C-alpha cells in the first residue's frame, strides 16, 4: 500500500493551479496534434520542448505538460483515421482498417466513441501498470554497476530499431552517428575539447533538443513539400455526435485484450506505440474474426488497436523513467528534455525526486479523465480544427520551432544547427534510416562513455570487468540474441523480396 500513499503525494503535486492548467492545455494541444495529419507525437513534443524550456517551468511541470501532449496525441490520432482514412499519426494506422469503414456505414459517432473509450481503458491500465512496475524495476536497477550500465546501453542501441523489417545495419549506423555527435565538446573527465573544430559554440557539445527539433520537425516540413497539398480527401460528414452506448459495451473484451498486448509491447525496448497497436489488432483479429468482419467495420477492430497504442505509450514510460533508457521515439524526446533540465532518469530518480515521478503518475490519471471528456462530448471541436489546411499550419509550426529554439539561448548558431539537422533528418528518412537511434545515441552517448571509463578506472584498465557481473553477461546475451533475430529476419525478407521480383519478372 506504499504505492497508494506515494500516489496520494503525487496528487498534491499535480493539483497545483499551474500544473492543472498545463495538464489541460497539454491534453487539448496533444489531441489536436494527434488529429492533424502530418504532426505526430514525436514532432508535437519536439516542437513544444524548446518552449517549456524558454518559459523556465520546473522539470515536474514541463514533464506533466509534455506527457499530457504525448497521451493526447495517442487519443487524437484516431480522429483523422476514422473520418479521413488518413492516420493522424503513425500508431493510428491500424485504426483506419475498421474505423473508416464504420464511418462510411454511418457509424462515425460510434467509432469515435468506441475508440475514445478504448483509449481511456488502454491508457488507464498502462498508468496503473506504471505505478506498480516502475518502482520495482527501479529497485532492481539499483544494483547496476558502471559495467552493467554500459551493457544496458549496448542492449538499448541493439533493440531500439525494433524487429520489424528495416535493415539492422542502418539502425546501428544511425546509433553510431548519434554516439559520434555525443562526443563533440569538452570531454567532462579530462577537459580536452574534442571535435569542436575550434568553434566555441561547440565546446558545450551539441544540445540534443536542438538536434531533435531539427531532425523531426524541420525534416517533416521538407518531407511534406514532396506531396501535393491539393489531394486531401473530404472528411466524412457526421450528422449526430451522440454514440449509442449499446455499441460500446460489446467491445469491452477487445479493449482489455488490446490493452494487455499493447502494454507489454510498450515496455519492451524498441517497440513503442506503433507496434503496440499493430500487435493488439493482429491478436484481436486472430481471436474474434470468426465471421470475417475485420477490415469491414468491425467495432472490435477499432477498440483493440486504440487500446493497444495508448497502453503501449504508457508502458514505454516505464523503462524511460526507471532505467533512463527510452523504448520509443517520443519517450526518447521526453528523456532529452529531462536531461536538459538536469534531471537524470534512472533508478535513483525514484528516491531523489519522488515528487517528480509521482506527480507525473498522478497527472497521467487526471490526464486520462480530461482526455475522455475532451474526446467524447467535445469531439466536434477537433473535427473542425482538424481541417486546417497544411499550407497554413506548417509555416506557423515552423515559425514556432524557430522561436522556441532561439528562446533557449538567443543563439543564431543554434538555429543554423537546427536547419542542418533538418536536412540530415530528411536525407536519413528518405534512405529509410530511423532517426530514433541517432537521438538515443546523442542522448546516452555521454553517459555510456562515462560508465565505460568509470568501469575501466575501477578495474585499472582490465577490459574483463565488462563481463565480470552476471547482470552484464545476461544483458550481452540478450543483445546477441536480439541482433541474431533481427539479422535473420532481415535476410529472410531480403530473400523473399528477391524471390517475388523473380516470379514477377
Amino acid at each position: 500500500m506504499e504505492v497508494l500513499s506515494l500516489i496520494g503525494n503525487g496528487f498534491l503535486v499535480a493539483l497545483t493551479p499551474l500544473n492543472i492548467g498545463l495538464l489541460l492545455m497539454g491534453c487539448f494541444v496533444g489531441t489536436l496534434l494527434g488529429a492533424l495529419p502530418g504532426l505526430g507525437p514525436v514532432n508535437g513534443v519536439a516542437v513544444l520542448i524548446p518552449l517549456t524550456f524558454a518559459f523556465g517551468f520546473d522539470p515536474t511541470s514541463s514533464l506533466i505538460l509534455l506527457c499530457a501532449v504525448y497521451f493526447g496525441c495517442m487519443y487524437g490520432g484516431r480522429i483523422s483515421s476514422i473520418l479521413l482514412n488518413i492516420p493522424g499519426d503513425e500508431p493510428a494506422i491500424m485504426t483506419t482498417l475498421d474505423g473508416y469503414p464504420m464511418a462510411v456505414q454511418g457509424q462515425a459517432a460510434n467509432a469515435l466513441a468506441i475508440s475514445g473509450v478504448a483509449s481511456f481503458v488502454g491508457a488507464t491500465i498502462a498508468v496503473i501498470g506504471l505505478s506498480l512496475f516502475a518502482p520495482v524495476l527501479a529497485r532492481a536497477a539499483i544494483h547496476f554497476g558502471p559495467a552493467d550500465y554500459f551493457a544496458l546501453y549496448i542492449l538499448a542501441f541493439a533493440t531500439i530499431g525494433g524487429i520489424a523489417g528495416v535493415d539492422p545495419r542502418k539502425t546501428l549506423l544511425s546509433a553510431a552517428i548519434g554516439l559520434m555527435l555525443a562526443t563533440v565538446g569538452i570531454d567532462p573527465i579530462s577537459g580536452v575539447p574534442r571535435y569542436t573544430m575550434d568553434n566555441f559554440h561547440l565546446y558545450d557539445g551539441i544540445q540534443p533538443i536542438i538536434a531533435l527539433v531539427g531532425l523531426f520537425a524541420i525534416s517533416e516540413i521538407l518531407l511534406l513539400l514532396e506531396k501535393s497539398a491539393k489531394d486531401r480527401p473530404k472528411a466524412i460528414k457526421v450528422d449526430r455526435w451522440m454514440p449509442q452506448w449499446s455499441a460500446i459495451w460489446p467491445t469491452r473484451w477487445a479493449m482489455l485484450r488490446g490493452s494487455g498486448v499493447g502494454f507489454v509491447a510498450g515496455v519492451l525496448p524498441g517497440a513503442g506505440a506503433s507496434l503496440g497497436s499493430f500487435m493488439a489488432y493482429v491478436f484481436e483479429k486472430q481471436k474474434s474474426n470468426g465471421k470475417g468482419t475485420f477490415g469491414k467495420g468491425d467495432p472490435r477492430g477499432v477498440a483493440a488497436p486504440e487500446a493497444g497504442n495508448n497502453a503501449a505509450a504508457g508502458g514505454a514510460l516505464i523503462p524511460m523513467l526507471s532505467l533512463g533508457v527510452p523504448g520509443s521515439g517520443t519517450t526518447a524526446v521526453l528523456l532529452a528534455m529531462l536531461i536538459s533540465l538536469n534531471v537524470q532518469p534512472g533508478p535513483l530518480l525514484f528516491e531523489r525526486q519522488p515528487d517528480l515521478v509521482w506527480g507525473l503518475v498522478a497527472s497521467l490519471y487526471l490526464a486520462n479523465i480530461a482526455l475522455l471528456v475532451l474526446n467524447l462530448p467535445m469531439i466536434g471541436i477537433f473535427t473542425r480544427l482538424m481541417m486546417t489546411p497544411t499550407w497554413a499550419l506548417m509555416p506557423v509550426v515552423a515559425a514556432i520551432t524557430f522561436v522556441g529554439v532561439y528562446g533557449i539561448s538567443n543563439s543564431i548558431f543554434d538555429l543554423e544547427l537546427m536547419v542542418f539537422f533538418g536536412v540530415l533528418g530528411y536525407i536519413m528518412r528518405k534512405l529509410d534510416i530511423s532517426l530514433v537511434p541517432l537521438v538515443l545515441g546523442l542522448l546516452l552517448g555521454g553517459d555510456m562513455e562515462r560508465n565505460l571509463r568509470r568501469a575501466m578506472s575501477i578495474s585499472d584498465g582490465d577490459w574483463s570487468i565488462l563481463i565480470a557481473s552476471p547482470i552484464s553477461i545476461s544483458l550481452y546475451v540478450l543483445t546477441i540474441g536480439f541482433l541474431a533475430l533481427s539479422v535473420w529476419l532481415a535476410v529472410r525478407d531480403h530473400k523473399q523480396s528477391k524471390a517475388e521480383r523473380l516470379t514477377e519478372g
Partner: protein
Amino acid sequence: MSGLSVRLFGAAVFAIAALYTLQSQTYQITFGDVLGPSVFPLIVGIPMMILSASLVIFPTGEVEWPGKDRLWRQAVALAAFVGYTMVMEELGFPIATAILIAVVGIVMGGAPWRAIALGAVFGPGLWALFDQVLGLPLDFLGTLFG
C-alpha cells in the same frame, strides 16, 4: 544502378567516420583517467566504418527522390530557413517571421495572397504572444532599424 543513394550516403559516412577515428588519436592525456578521451571514439568510429562500408558494398532499399517540380519547393523552403537565421537579428522578429511564414506557405501550395496574409497576422502575432504575453524577449525591430 540500384541503391546509388544509399551507397553515396554510406561513402560519406565512411569518410567522416575515418576522419573521426583518426582525429581521436590526437586526444592524449598523460595522467588521471585510465581510458582517456581517445578510446570511446575508437569504439564508435571503427564499427561505424565497417557498417557504412557494408552499406556501400551491399546497399538495401530503393529511394525515390522528388521530381523537379517538388525539388524547387524544398530548395525555396530551405533557403527561407537559412535566410531567416541570417536576417532575423537585422530585421527583427515580426518582419522576418512574417516573411518566413509567407514563403513556406506559398511553397506548401497556399494561394500567395493568403499565405502573405497569414504571415502578416502571425509574424506580429507570435511576437506579441511570446514577447508580451509569455515574457520571452524577442527583438521587435532589428539592428537594421536601430
